């Protein structure tokens, strides 16, 4: 894929919520447009409750928009049924969460291999691939550990390794350092960006931390439901 090719395109995206107990609806995203080229790193900034996580969940296909389109490699996510969307998401869109979201009863290596198993891509080389990824992120000593035995930073690095296993088009990260201290967060982000660059992946990162956002090539901010590019 050429570097300048558009991987993700968001067109006139709207999302509204009904306030529980009333019939009033609240528009959280109001005509969001976004184009992301292959291999770019994009940060989305916003205050708490501004809709940045909502936007991320819509891009990830975890939620459906009230109107507008989300195209990933020219595939309209809205056109898929739930089963197809799950398959598409699993192969093309990976997520890194603020709360790490590892499976507690699986070891580090199993957590990393799991996406390949679930997308029927597992083969004899899968384990080597996982070990290699974990080594690249300095976790080769921890491959047989369980999440409960890891520090927060280590857990997030496992989550990063897991997100790269299926070689997705886009990695979506939701406040990846939100649960880490500054020093650990910086170390994790450094390794994350190095891997993304090395593997030529597109990264969309949602954060309220401007210093983290500045590590990305493009920065957007959600203001009053609209996405505004910051210079």
């Amino acid at each position, binding site marked *: 894929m050429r570097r300048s090719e558009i991987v993700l395109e968001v067109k006139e995206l709207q999302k509204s919520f009904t306030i529980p107990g009333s019939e009033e609806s609240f528009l959280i995203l109001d005509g969001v447009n976004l184009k992301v080229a292959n291999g770019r790193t994009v940060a989305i900034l916003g205050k708490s409750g501004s809709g940045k*996580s909502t936007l*991320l*969940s819509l891009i*990830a296909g*975890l*939620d459906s928009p009230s109107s507008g389109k989300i195209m990933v490699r020219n595939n309209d996510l809205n056109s898929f049924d*739930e*089963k197809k969307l*799950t*398959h598409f*998401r*699993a*192969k093309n869109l990976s*997520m890194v*969460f603020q*709360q790490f*979201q*590892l*499976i*507690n009863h699986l070891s580090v290596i199993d957590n990393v291999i*799991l*996406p390949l198993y*679930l*997308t029927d891509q597992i083969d004899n080389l899968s384990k080597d691939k996982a070990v290699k990824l974990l080594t690249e992120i300095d976790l080769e000593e921890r491959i047989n550990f369980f999440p409960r035995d890891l520090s927060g930073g280590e857990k997030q690095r496992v989550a990063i390794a*897991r997100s790269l296993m*299926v070689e997705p088009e886009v990695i979506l990260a*939701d406040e990846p350092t939100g649960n880490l201290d500054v020093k650990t967060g910086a170390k994790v982000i450094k390794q994350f960006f190095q891997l993304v660059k090395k593997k030529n992946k597109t990264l969309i990162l949602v954060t309220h931390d401007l210093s983290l956002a500045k590590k990305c090539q493009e920065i957007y901010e959600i203001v009053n439901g609209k996405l505004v590019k910051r210079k």
Partner: protein
Amino acid sequence: MVINLTISLVSFVLINSFKESVNTYVVDNSKSILTADLSIYSRRPFSDLEKEVIANLDEDKRASLYKYFSMIKVGERTQLINVSVFNQNYPLYGKIEVADFEDNEIPFSKVKQEMMEGKIALISEEAKIAFDLAEPTEVKIGKQNYLAKYIVKKDIGGTINFNEVSKKIYLSDEQHDKQVFQTKGNLVRRNIFIKLAEDDDLLQAKSDLSAEFLALEQDLSIPSIRTHRESRGQVGNVLGNVTRYLSLIAVVALFLSGVGTFYLFRSYIYAKIREIAIIESLGMVKRDLYIVNIMQLLFISLCSVLLSLFIGVFSFSLLPVLFQGLLPEDLDVFINLRSVALIMVVAFVGIMFFCLPLLYTLKHIKPLYLINENINFSSLRKFKFYLNFIPSIIAFYVLSVYLSDSLYLGTIFSLSFFFIILLIILLQTITLYALDKGKNYFPLLLNLIVKQFSHNKQAVSFYFFSISLSVLLISITPQMEHSLKQELAKPEEIMLPSLFLFNIQDFEEEELVDAIRDNGYELENITPMIFAQLLKHNGVVVAHSEEDDSNDAPEERRRGDALGRTVNLSYKEQLSVSEKIVAGKPFNDNYQEGGKIEISIEKEYASDRGLKLGDELTFKLINIPFEFTGEIINFREVKWNSFQPNFFILIHPEVLKGIPKQLVASISGVQGESKVALQSKINDQFANVSIVDVEKAIEVIFSIIDKMELLIGSMVLFCLLLGFFILFSIINYEVRLKEKEINLLKVMSNGFYKVYKMVILQYIILGIFSISIGMISSVIISYVFVKFVLEINFYFSGFVIFYLFFLMNLVVLAISYLGSKRVLLKKPILLLKST
């Protein structure tokens, strides 16, 4: 979940294996149980034409056994006994094991020969014990003396022992007084047994014989003909009925375990929401998610089945204790493939159906949860969600019908059970509503606790339901037993007679009255009894069959054999205090010969047989050429526990006066030794008169009630155990769920004691209310059952209620402590680390 399901399945394994073992035993020993290939049975004497048909059968392959009740006199003691009179060829199959008083086994053929040649009698072990016999002793039956020389050790056809009923004496027809059969009318049960040649077709032989009796074209009921396969014997019938009821309790245990499994699986799913969302976000589709969860449930049920089979096999040794005196000695309890298959189906289907609504919740778990940690379960309160419970309700009903072997019993049971559930839910809702409304008037601690209940409605409902239902089950049997015993021992407004007399010939009435008066007592309630056959109902000929035992459930048998049997008619100038007219009008005082004949019917008898006021019934008297048609003009309610002479069918007194009859009567106010002496005197003078000692009869019934209570109580224990297990699981889970909250309270409070008190107190309050609801429901259900099904007075047992209430609360307190102690005793610092 495995333990929860296993507890209920163990009860299933036990009951079902026992049932299967009894069935196998009965099938394997069917010829020995019937002692023949075919039997011809009649309660009335065989007619001359029938005797001809019987005489045409091969004499060597024909045996007879006549049974009736009579008085036996041993020394000065007189008691009622079951007399069996057999001929030379009896038994055609099977064997009777006999021993002498030194316990030496004697071949039955030798004993039989001795009995044919001399007045020797065989007695059952129970009769030996009842008369305290240590050596061969002279006994008197009717006017004849016999030497009770041998004891029956094993008689396969009559293995079931309900104490008094099993006091038996065996006589040979060669030495037996033939006159007895003439005077006892249809109180004699007559069996002719037939052995077929090996190549004879059993069903063809039965059908040929039936055709021969039908061809006689007599105005008499046709003797019943039964093959050995159709005859389950006493073993099959009594145990069959017992296991039917026990199986239904096992269904309740399964239901309770289903509720427990539902709760535990729900907790499991709720605990795994995050994990499910993760694997969904990584690519698992819903279909695979359902498959994984179904596989997990199947695995749990498979583990439970294996564990319950293992425990069940080791528990088989308990069965002889529970069924003491009811089991044939050589009955081996085993698990067959059929039982294993049934238990697997019950476990798989049960768990799937109960957890089906939960699989529905999986639909609502989406990867979005990983970002906003919010799941919309509001649809779970919608009607569509509750539809998911329908398969489990249907499965419960089907299982009830299957295990009770009766559509009628299964339906009644299921309806009653669902009524009980609704009652518990209603009482529970009212209680929680009242607590919620009144919380502002409570002290702060109670107020906080009640707020917890409102916040955590589902868990509270499970807690309530499991405790209330198991408490209800455990308290319902002692309450019913209490009313039953009270009513039997002391029926309201009625003085129980001391002795009940039957088989009195009408010609000896005056003499008997005088004899009893000479002893200082009065013969009371002298009531005639006339044997007849119901020919027509509203002009339609009814089926004529002398059916004896049946394989159906008793309720269905009662309905099925409603009409067409030989019946006992009676008449009274005045109704006794133990009966009253509940519908229709009393007999007309001015009866005129040739006018309308009036009939009075006992209301339950009428209801079972579909008889209505104004219906016409045609009777033919047995042995007397008299036929008449009458109209039902009233229904009576009879207190049968009064032990006074009462009859289902009463005819206007003017109709049957002067017709030869037998009499039944009673004597009151005879106590202790006087009773023994009076019985002895009556027996000396009137050998044909049979006497029931009412006090002893009640003792027998009490012992049967106790035995049934022990059996039912044992099964109910499984339910109780399940209830407590679910309680433990709920407390354990809920406390863990509130670990953070409890930790916070500990940090904020000036002592851990307050936190313990708050947590334990909420479970104690819930316990008190749920136990009370279980108790109240059980009183309501017992009252309804006792009053409207048993139709006796309800006697409230404060002791039973108080004792169970106290005991249950102690257990709940202990479980609350055990279930919550792991979290409660943790130091806050550890809790902080774990979060």
